[in-house]
């Protein structure tokens, strides 16, 4: 009797747990649930902006905190014929095109970028997976590049288009891309970085140039940047959610 009851209770408990879990997993596949949960991101972004404001700087660390091995993540080598040719040439002909809603479209060589005023910062890189690494980054503040290009009054977002193809072999190419709003893009620590720990940026970290946006998670900092475009919205660009990982369901706001 007692044994039967125990078995019944155990089975009832397990069934309830399975129903709850199965229910939540299938809920995770319902567009309306995903949309509802995604709405929370707006609240999070506004709250975080309220506290961090425009200018609060991400913490910077002393040299002794620099990781002996900085973990390289995402694409480790774009490995396309075009990219390999640039790499073989030491990226001498690499140019970053700046266009879209700007009065002065630019095409900046690496030499020209390096000739601009630079900033060096020792910061913590936080991956969305949960780990952190500290490294020293040197680059040109994106605000200087944008100021030279002069965004128009309609400008709201800065898009970054990259050389690394994320698609599986045989699928149509899907190049990595990302976006920041103007406020984060013009933050003093937001850099077009070309050096890590005092060395020319290695390929696995995004050579010749990658983004640093220190108040955001790692996926918001694209590597292998080829083109920067200032836009008023990104609904019509690629998957329409503002970035490669965003199109796979990750939050556009990468502040947490």
């Amino acid at each position, binding site marked *: 009797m007692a044994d039967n009851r125990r078995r019944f209770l155990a089975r009832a408990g397990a069934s309830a747990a*399975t129903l709850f879990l199965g229910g939540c997993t299938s809920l995770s596949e319902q567009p309306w649930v995903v949309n509802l949960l995604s709405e929370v991101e707006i609240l999070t972004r506004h709250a975080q902006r309220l506290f961090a404001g425009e200018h609060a700087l991400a913490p910077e660390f002393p040299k002794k905190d620099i990781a002996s091995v900085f973990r390289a993540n995402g694409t480790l080598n774009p490995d396309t014929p075009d990219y390999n040719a640039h790499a073989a040439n030491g990226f001498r002909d690499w140019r970053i095109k700046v266009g879209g809603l700007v009065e002065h479209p630019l095409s900046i060589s690496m030499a020209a970028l390096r000739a601009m005023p630079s900033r060096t910062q020792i910061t913590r890189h936080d991956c969305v997976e949960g780990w*952190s690494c*500290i490294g020293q980054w040197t680059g040109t503040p994106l605000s200087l590049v944008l100021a030279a290009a002069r965004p128009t009054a309609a400008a709201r977002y800065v898009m970054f288009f990259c050389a690394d193809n994320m698609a599986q072999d045989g699928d149509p190419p899907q190049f990595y891309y990302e976006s920041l709003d103007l406020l984060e893009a013009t933050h003093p620590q937001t850099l077009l970085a070309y050096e890590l720990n005092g060395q020319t940026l290695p390929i696995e970290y995004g050579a010749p140039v990658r983004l640093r946006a220190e108040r955001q998670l790692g996926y918001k900092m694209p590597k292998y940047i080829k083109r920067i475009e200032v836009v008023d919205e990104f609904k019509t660009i690629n998957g329409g959610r503002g970035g490669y990982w965003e199109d796979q369901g990750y939050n556009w706001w990468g502040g947490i």
Partner: protein
Amino acid sequence: MGIEPAKVIRRALGLAPRGPHYLFPRHRLFVRISHWINAGCLAFLLMSGLQIFNAHPALYWGQSSDFDHPLLSMTALDNGSELVGVTQAGPWHFNTTGVLGVSNEDGSPMVRGFPDWATLPGPQWLAMGRLWHFAFAWLFVINGLLFWAYSITRGHARHDLLPTGTDIAHLPREVIDHIKLKFPRGEDAKRYNALQKLAYFSVIFVLGPLIVLTGLTMSPTMDSAFPELLWIFGGRQSARTIHFICAFSFLGFFIIHIAMVVLSGTWNNLRSMITGRYVIEGNKDG
């Protein structure tokens, strides 16, 4: 006084006694609503939290991750014929195949920290785990702040939850009573005993804020706004470790809480947290 089995069983199940008894208003509506919202939040938060943890099932101490020396890690080894789940805690290594490191998903062994029955969603799906986690984190914080405001302004925190000197003095006696499964009855059941006060007070006013603050310390934007957070918790990775410990403290609290609810009168306790009314043995004026 002899043992009457029928009476003991009725008491454990929380059914009204055959003798004199009356209904006592034990929990106010606000507390009851707040309690159940919180219970739901904790279930969603724990399971989506384990999903997020699975994206990098290792914990560290300090500002950044020392990948070669985690405090705790769940990994998988391929011994040639099968996958072996290995959980490492400090210098110790355990074979945890089937539960931690390697567990079955749709019938085949998968490399994953916690098993799919413990995570939300079940399959590895970090983006979705984050959506669930942050949505319920907001609800948890708002509900918690409202409860704080209510319990502090209405005297609930001070009169019902804050342990008094007398409570502390009674603590050893109560621990022994609890071990013997002797629970307060009659007039004594109308207020929380010292163990309850200590447990509820520390969960509400220590563990709750601690898990929220360590959660926020993991946010790079919040670290820009409040760099003090890093100083308080010793870095982002320490905060992540403390957040994990807090989550399992909540789980430990939950298990003991459920055990006590069941042992000290299941239905009476449940009813009092649903309708507010709790059966007291004896006469009302007695």
